[in-house]
């Protein structure tokens, strides 16, 4: 047993947490190792010193509790409420929403012959930077600027009756996606411009 191990056992013995087996080993070391007894006495003296710390001065705990309660009541009128989040349900909902958005994105992919400069994706629709433009009247002229540089209209003709997309007008900083069920999508970028 080295000194570090011996001292650790001494510390645990002072704490009253030493196992019987370790206690036997400690006693054996104390009986045989030179200087072990002196070291043990030093730790014992230190422990006595620590235990002799005067107690916390008298405090009116009843008044303290009252003050704490008053502070809580003044600061928090209502008790804290634990929200019982059902993470399984939330996770399922989020997964379903992601699937739906992915499906929408795939569905809006351009068909052959239809020229779309940018295909809407989940990321595009879910992007935090959303701008919505309502074209009134439908032949409104759009100014090309920093936030609207190109306009594409979708979805393709054969997918234009989707109730989901019928009201969707979603833009990203550089691209506007427009889908209207009653207007089969054409490559209308020329007319818009």
């Amino acid at each position, binding site marked *: 047993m080295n000194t570090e191990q011996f001292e650790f056992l001494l510390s645990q013995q002072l704490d009253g947490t030493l196992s019987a087996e370790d206690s036997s080993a400690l006693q054996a070391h104390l009986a045989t190792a030179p200087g072990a007894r002196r070291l043990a006495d030093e730790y014992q003296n230190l422990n006595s010193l620590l235990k002799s710390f005067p*107690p916390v001065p008298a405090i009116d705990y009843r008044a*303290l509790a009252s003050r704490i309660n008053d502070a809580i009541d003044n600061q928090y009128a209502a008790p804290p*409420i634990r929200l019982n989040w059902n993470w399984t349900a939330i996770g399922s909902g989020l997964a379903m929403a992601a699937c739906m958005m992915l499906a929408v994105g795939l569905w809006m992919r351009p068909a052959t012959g239809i020229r779309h400069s940018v295909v809407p994706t989940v990321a595009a629709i879910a992007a935090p930077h959303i701008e919505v433009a309502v074209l009134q009247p439908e032949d409104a002229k759009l100014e090309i600027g920093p936030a609207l540089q190109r306009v594409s209209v979708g979805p393709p003709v054969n997918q234009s009756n989707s109730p989901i997309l019928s009201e969707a007008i979603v833009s990203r900083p550089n691209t506007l996606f427009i889908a209207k069920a009653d207007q089969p999508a054409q490559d209308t970028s020329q007319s818009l411009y």
Partner: protein
Amino acid sequence: MERQATDDPEPTETLSPSDGMLVAETLGGRRSAFDELIQRYQRQAIAVSYRLLGNTHDASEVTQDAFLKAYSSLTSLQKPEAFGGWLLRIVSNLSLNYRRGRKTRSQLPLDDVLGPIDSGQTQASGRSEWMSKSGDPSRSMESREMGGRLQQALSQLPEKQRLAITMFTIEEMAQKDIAEALNCSVEAVKWHVFQGRKKLKELLKDYL
């Protein structure tokens, strides 16, 4: 160590609801359940804060803040049964922050706040209450000096060792509560206590 006498009765384990039950009841809207937690832990909170700050006024302020913080954060408590250790962690952190702020504001080291190490000269204010109030008036200058040395040595320990020694060896708190307060295992608490003792023995070798 002589224990502090108190007015209100100690809760008996067989009759008192567990910490977890009281936390649940508080979250369920029974405000008085939190009052029971205050009654149960205010002494430990004061003791820890007092050992770190050196006077009961600051310790009371920090304890009040700690209970307020605990109340407002109760929904985030992952293990309601560990409320005691969790509260002591808040108390420790607030006390250490308070002490740092106090140092910054006053540019005084803790030892100045606690009082001079050589206690031959008595200051009217700014000295530790434990040296000036709690002892026998006939306490010898030698023992007061020893107390000052010990306080100074404790303040030189790393925070976890100081807290482990304070909570376990001086205040005799349960190791599992200390483990929760220090955010470590019970074995680590034993190790912190040991390392703290070892450093204290070196710092105080002339007095042992």
